[in-house]
């Protein structure tokens, strides 16, 4: 049984500390927002979750490309682990956005470019997972997943671009103004905001390491099993 490497243990504690600090900053340190009230605090988690979703997507696409070039299975493991984490955070992003939107814009949903793009990204993630689940051959699974993640990664920003361009031609005004521009007036808010980005990035890294380690251990188990079975023969 391989014990957890020391660096990972340190990272665990560091991340927990960051989360604690981040919570403090978001809930107590940052001032109450004038227009939107307490619900604005969701923002610190919402954007950071979206950031992790995008980061995980990028990592998945890059690992996919590396797998295709190098044909080393560990890149496929990184890609899959990254997607597992990314899809969760993307959903947190969408749901927290919805929770924030309801009292502010009086609607659970709007078709603004960022939301649509986040949804599309979530759909690409889901398609990726379904693709993986649908292939038995491990080499083929890794290849297909890599190809799809590369195409998906190119496609999502292009979708955002197209919708954004549409908005600039036909500008649509909705609700109480653009959240990003209005919400960051106070420097204390900015501190809380950037700190949450940092914290979530650490959460991502920690989870990714744990997931990879889990995968590695599970494969070791598989190999042991196979050795025992063939030794019996």
């Amino acid at each position, binding site marked *: 049984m391989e014990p957890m490497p020391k660096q990972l243990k340190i990272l665990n504690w560091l991340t927990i500390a960051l989360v604690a600090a981040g919570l403090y900053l978001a809930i107590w340190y940052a001032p109450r927002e004038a227009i939107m009230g307490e619900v604005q605090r969701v923002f610190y988690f919402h954007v950071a979750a979206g950031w992790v979703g995008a980061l995980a997507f990028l990592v998945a696409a890059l690992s996919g490309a590396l797998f295709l070039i190098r044909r080393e299975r560990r890149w496929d493991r990184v890609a899959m682990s990254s997607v597992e984490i990314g899809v969760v955070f993307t959903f947190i992003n969408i749901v927290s956005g919805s929770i924030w939107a309801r009292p502010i814009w009086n609607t659970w949903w709007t078709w603004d470019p960022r939301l649509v793009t986040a949804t599309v990204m979530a759909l690409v993630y889901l398609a990726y997972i379904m693709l993986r689940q649908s292939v038995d*051959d*491990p*080499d083929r699974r890794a290849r297909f997943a890599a190809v799809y993640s590369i195409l998906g990664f190119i496609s999502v920003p292009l979708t955002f671009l197209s919708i954004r361009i549409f908005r600039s031609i036909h500008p649509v005004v909705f609700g109480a103004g653009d959240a990003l521009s209005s919400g960051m007036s106070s420097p204390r808010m900015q501190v809380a905001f950037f700190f949450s980005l940092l914290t979530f990035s650490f959460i991502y890294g920690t989870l990714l390491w744990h997931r990879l380690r889990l995968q590695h251990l599970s*494969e070791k188990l*598989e*190999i042991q099993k*196979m050795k025992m079975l063939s030794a019996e*023969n």
Partner: protein
Amino acid sequence: MIEARHIVKHYGLKPVLREVDFMVDSGEFVAIVGPNGAGKTTFLRILASLARPNAGTLRVAGFVLPAQAIDVRRRIGMLSHQALLYGDLTAEENLRFYGRMYAVQNLEACIHDAIRLVGLQRRRRDLVRRFSRGMQQRLAIARAILHEPELLLLDEPHTGLDPDAAAMLDGLLREVTQRGRTIVMTSHDLQRASDLATRVDFLFRGKIAASFKQGEIETQRLLEMYRSVTRG
């Protein structure tokens, strides 16, 4: 013609081929026999450049695989237990298609000869969809040799053929060997393999367990040995 050293192939974590060494000289007819799941089809596909080994070196027809795959493909023909033919095209059209793909010269004459060789002149304008399995396999041979490959790879070609069709296939294979081609055939029919081939190799649990030249050993003893090897 073929130089394979230490070929390794995995299916995920499971090893399918463990350091297979395999040499074939020009003009030989080698049969690879083994139980299902031994890795015969996988190995043949690697030789055909349809799959890549995880490790090992491989030279086919003088070229390195997988680096010079295109040069290798020009010189090999393959027969699978699937026909590799388009059901909605006629026999002629199928050959014409493959002839164009392989840039065969004097295509119409070659098609004519190939169809005559496999005895399908009367059905040349019929849709492949309507062919029996035996006829499809015959047309598949025509397709495989159309571009005059030096090496023929056959993956259990007798599968699903009735005795008449199988006998006809054997006749064709003998004729094809006489013209100096090299053939590698996988099979789980040991009797047939030892009748046709100049050499029989046993592939068992991902390794070549034994190799016998034609005449070295009686077929009966071969069968017994095969059974004892596969039983462990």
